[in-house]
């Protein structure tokens, strides 16, 4: 028995670092100089503007993809909204503001809806590489209506889980909130049971291969790693799953990947 607990202890230590980094709310240092981040943020802004996108879904790579489960490439997703911007010094301009769901710094099991700039969005990126979905013009109009209404906040659930199940409202991550807003726009409703019913019926989340023991022990490392909102298998909302859903239902104008030097279609 004593031996068993020794092994369990070793296992916890071995599992700890990778998972703790994965779902951490610790502040991350920028991986790139500010000038590179700003230039890339402007490149994405200008690209979106040149395509006439008033609102787009943009994803960033916050971690080395080789360390992520199969099927996950991007780690954070948000709406970019073309806006009239006024800064503190009175200067004005037109560009994009980013509508994020972030884990709170003090408690990783809670989230808040936070608006920031394109440069802020990429500051924590592992790689300057963005996934972009520009919705169909008609859907853009619907999304803008929801983003500028109380419905945007009413489909937010502050209970955060990294791998939240989009088919129920027990927990939520940034991509699931993005999906809720999308469904609220498509079905013209902020009724969560109806949104979840439609997600269950029409959206295919990304299955995540997760060992039973790791699944059991992960919440001991961080409560934000819980999977108790799932059944026998774990599946969550990802940028790729959103892109597939939108392509399948003819909801996207275009879907592509942009880096400092290239723009490629998925």
């Amino acid at each position, binding site marked *: 028995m004593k031996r068993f607990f020794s092994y369990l202890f070793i296992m916890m230590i071995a599992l700890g670092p990778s998972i703790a980094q994965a779902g951490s709310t610790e502040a991350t240092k920028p991986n790139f100089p500010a000038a590179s981040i700003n230039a890339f943020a402007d490149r994405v802004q200008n690209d979106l503007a040149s395509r006439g996108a008033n609102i787009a879904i943009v994803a960033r790579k916050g971690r080395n993809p080789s360390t992520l*489960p199969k099927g996950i490439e991007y780690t954070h997703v948000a709406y970019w909204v*073309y806006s009239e911007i006024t800064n*503190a010094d009175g200067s004005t301009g037109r560009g994009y503001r980013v509508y*994020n769901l972030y884990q709170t710094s003090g408690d990783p099991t809670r989230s808040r809806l936070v608006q920031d700039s*394109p440069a802020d969005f990429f500051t924590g990126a592992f790689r300057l590489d963005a996934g972009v979905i520009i919705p169909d013009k008609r859907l853009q109009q619907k999304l803008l209506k929801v983003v500028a209404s109380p419905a945007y906040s009413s489909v937010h659930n502050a209970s955060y889980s990294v791998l939240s199940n989009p088919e129920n409202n027990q927990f939520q991550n940034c991509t699931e909130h993005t999906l809720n807003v999308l469904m609220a726009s498509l079905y013209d409703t902020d009724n969560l049971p109806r949104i979840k019913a439609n997600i269950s019926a029409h959206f295919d989340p990304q299955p995540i291969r997760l060992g039973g023991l790791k699944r059991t022990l992960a919440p001991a490392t961080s409560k934000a790693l819980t999977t108790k909102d799932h059944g026998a298998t774990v599946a969550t909302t990802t940028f790729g799953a959103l892109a597939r859903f939108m392509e399948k239902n003819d909801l996207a104008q275009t879907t592509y990947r942009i880096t400092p030097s290239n723009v490629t279609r998925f």
Partner: protein
Amino acid sequence: MKLRLVTLATIAALAVTPVFAQGSGQHSAQAADHSGQAASHGAAAVVSGTAAVAAVPIVVVGGALAVTGAALTSAGTGSVQTGADLSEAAVVPQNTTIIVIEPDGAPTLD
């Protein structure tokens, strides 16, 4: 025997496809105090107190778009450093009771 089993289980557990996706952690540049930032999410304009940025979504879709002036981050003003907290207006209790309702048809824009 028991020791071997436990060892094997340990190896099997650690060999499984690792880790989770990164959470939406806010980076250091956004670590500023949100408490002073009022949110008026119900309105089209969301104003943040200390971040001192007002952003009004342009809702007319279809016109020519350009990124100009203060919105260009390379101009040095875009990296706001603090986020505007939109959550405060929506601290609504979440109902996690499962209500079974019939779904609508597949989404369509036509």
